[in-house]
């Protein structure tokens, strides 16, 4: 146990509370009674990782089993990592303060492609070989899950197995199997072989990929597909009633309650909208009960609702009424992220306002109706203006708007469309007599670069080149000059790397390894991101980033992730891609089932 060593080094690092654990509600168990120890690793800093609901779910779920102990581990910033190295402290669990090298499982949640080098950094700091094939029976199993594993291939070299889909059931099945194998003194290889039989478990070492001369995939063997796991009934899914309450401030320091999973919308660029299907809701009673226990058990005075699109909850107004009855009485703030502009109405605004008045955020994504139809963002200009009007009448004076550049079929007219839309919103503000007259309107426009992702109808699309993205952005800046409008944008370098990793194949394992060896880590942080090193890693491996990012795929190309069955069918994705290029929209699941392939698991389908 590193407690004493940590006490010596922690005064030398920034925000030491995040490295010491022992927070209220953290779970401490007696080691001698534990059969399986699990290190839940979030390859980002404590501040970010501790805000994440998925981690809280799996942490509670595993710890609810008496003889399992799950501990939390986060990415260390360079100052802490250096102190640890100097004092021979290996990466440790925040509960026991013992090195995770001695645990049974090391599980990473992969939420974002630019955290891949952090995985390597953490394995290394744990004193483990980063390559799966170099780890032996004496080392823990290294497993991965989360949205990024819908294309696990770039990480195949580093992991023993991946959990595909929702983890609530399969994690416990895996641990149970492990417990049994451990008692029977089975080898790691024997365990992995058995684990591969569990639905939702993908073992990369059992698969092989061959390539054509032009770099595309020739064949992936065997043909057996791994089907993602889903929880059929969200009301029966495990829900944590208690959260670890951090001592130091984190990004979202509040209770979170999941109200629905999946999305009925089908925006063609959005990976979450497809990989989390089918759409499922949790009942109002369950949500209220969950929020009550969370607030009582944590002392939080803020709660946020988790969903991909809050306004799609069937009884949203009733839900908000029930919830605000409770939160208002107990001076708790209720925040509603992920509100679509078209589900924004007077009543909802009243509810939101009665608790906290923050800025409004809308994501039209594209500047013209034509392009919004192509990406299937089924909102109209009228929806946007109506939403803004309600907001202005309610006293709001600032609006945040998100747009993407580089969408398929985008032309300069669509860029002008952004300018026109923004100007209409400003005009609307001044034409709204009920507006807050003491303030000027302020609009912030955030431009991101479109990144094609696996299991979306746009997985075939090229990412637009750097030159074109920059040209389009400059064009917008030249036509949208207004003191009331602030325009910001994301870095193309990070976008192209994300695009390459998202649709990469197994060969990228070498690139990730090289990049990390040359010093890359914390790539998601501007101040740590070093694009030149990544470029060099690609070229050292004889690979080209734009082959992965900027190349159009034919419908019959074998994708690196084709061994996975995410329930949404390839035929459907192809059909949706064609409809996009034909400028045809597809209605939401609630209006009409689009036969995406989910089939019987989907309850929306019957409506």
């Amino acid at each position, binding site marked *: 146990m590193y407690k004493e060593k940590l*006490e010596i080094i922690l005064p030398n690092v920034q925000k030491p509370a995040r490295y010491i654990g*022992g927070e209220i509600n953290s779970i401490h168990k007696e080691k001698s009674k534990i059969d399986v120890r699990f290190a839940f690793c979030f390859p980002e800093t404590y501040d970010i990782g501790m805000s994440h609901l998925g981690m809280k779910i799996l942490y509670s779920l595993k710890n609810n089993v008496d003889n399992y102990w799950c501990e939390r581990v986060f990415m260390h910033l360079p100052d802490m990592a250096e102190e640890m190295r100097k004092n021979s402290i290996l990466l440790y669990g925040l509960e026991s303060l013992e090195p995770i090298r001695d645990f049974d499982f090391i599980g990473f949640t992969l939420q974002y492609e630019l955290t891949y080098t952090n995985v390597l950094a953490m394995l290394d700091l744990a004193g483990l070989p980063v390559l799966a094939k170099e780890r032996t029976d004496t080392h823990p199993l290294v497993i991965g899950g989360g949205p990024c594993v819908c294309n696990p291939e770039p990480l195949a070299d580093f992991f023993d197995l991946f959990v595909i889909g929702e983890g609530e059931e399969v994690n416990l099945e895996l641990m149970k199997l492990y417990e049994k194998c451990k008692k029977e003194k089975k080898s790691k290889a024997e365990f992995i072989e058995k684990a591969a039989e569990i639905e939702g478990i993908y073992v990369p070492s059992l698969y092989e990929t061959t390539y054509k001369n032009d770099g595309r995939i020739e064949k992936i063997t065997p043909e057996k597909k791994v089907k993602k796991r889903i929880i059929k009934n969200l009301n029966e899914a495990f829900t944590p009633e208690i959260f670890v309450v951090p001592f130091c401030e984190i990004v979202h320091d509040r209770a979170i309650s999941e109200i629905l999973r999946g999305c009925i919308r089908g925006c063609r660029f959005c990976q979450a909208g497809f990989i989390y299907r089918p759409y499922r809701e949790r009942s109002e009673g369950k949500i209220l009960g969950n929020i009550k226990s969370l607030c009582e058990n944590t002392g939080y005075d803020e709660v946020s609702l988790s969903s991909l699109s809050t306004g799609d909850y069937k009884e949203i107004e009733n839900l908000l009424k029930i919830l605000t009855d409770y939160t208002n009485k107990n001076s708790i703030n209720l925040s509603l992220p992920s509100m679509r502009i078209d589900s924004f109405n007077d009543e909802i605004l009243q509810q939101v306002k009665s608790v906290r008045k923050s800025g409004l955020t809308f994501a039209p994504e594209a500047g013209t109706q034509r392009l919004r139809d192509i990406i299937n963002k089924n909102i109209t200009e009228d929806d946007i203006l109506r939403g803004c009007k309600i907001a202005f009448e309610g006293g709001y004076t600032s609006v945040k708007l998100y747009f993407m550049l580089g969408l398929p079929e985008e032309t300069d007219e669509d860029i002008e469309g952004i300018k026109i839309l923004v100007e209409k919103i400003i005009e609307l503000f001044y034409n709204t007599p009920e507006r807050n007259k003491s303030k000027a309107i302020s609009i912030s426009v955030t431009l991101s670069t479109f990144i094609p992702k696996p299991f979306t109808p746009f997985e075939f699309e090229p990412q637009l080149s750097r030159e074109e993205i920059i040209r389009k952005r400059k064009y917008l800046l030249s036509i949208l000059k207004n003191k009331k409008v602030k325009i910001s944008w994301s870095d193309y370098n990070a976008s192209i790397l994300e695009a390459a990793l998202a649709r990469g194949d197994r060969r990228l394992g070498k690139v990730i390894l090289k990049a990390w060896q040359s010093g890359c880590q914390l790539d998601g942080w501007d101040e740590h991101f070093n694009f030149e090193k990544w470029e060099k890693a690609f070229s050292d491996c004889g690979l080209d980033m734009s082959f992965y990012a900027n190349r159009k795929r034919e419908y019959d190309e074998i994708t690196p992730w084709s061994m996975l069955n995410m329930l949404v069918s390839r035929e459907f994705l192809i059909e949706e891609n064609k409809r996009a290029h034909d400028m045809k929209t597809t209605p939401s699941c609630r209006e009409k089932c689009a036969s995406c392939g989910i089939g019987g698991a989907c309850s929306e389908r019957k409506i």
Partner: protein
Amino acid sequence: MNEKSKPMRVFFKKTGRAKFISHLDLQRTMQRALKRAGLPVWETEGFNPHIYITFALPLSLGIESTCESFDIKIIEDIQADEIREKLNAALNEDLHIIAVAEPVYKHTEIIKAEYEIAVENAEKFAEFMSQNEIIITKKTKKGEAQIDLKPLIELRGIEGEKVVLILPAGNEFNVNPMQVTSAFSAFVGEELQARITRTAVFCVDGEAFI
């Protein structure tokens, strides 16, 4: 404010892992504990209401204490013991409530604090104290100032590895025991590991702060 509200002082220990909680974070941690405990405490009014809480004397990050305290306002009749028990149930052993009582002194009456310092080479501390002066650079609001620590340190004893001393404390003039240990390190000529615990807080007339 509520007519019936009554001030209460909560004494607690901040030990073990909790010594790495910063002052601001500690405040939030205690507010949440009060909430979890479901105690009838007064909340500030206005746009963003929060539980009223004020701490007697900030404690630097990395220092443990057996004599911390904060004040709250109680708006319903409740026994001190019940407050203590409920709060302890909402906290862990690193933040342990020792006692709850009605305050006697004001925070502004605090003048000194006692520290126990477990430090390597403690036997050299007497020698350290026998210097003519112990000059250190202290950061003040106006920049840096040279001060002589010697007359400010009231040495209470050296027992084995442990040095016990009293230092000026409070809003007016405060000496951080870490300044003493770093001066001592400089005197010995090596980076010494020190474990510091605040063990008592005193008021003007030498009475314990209660």
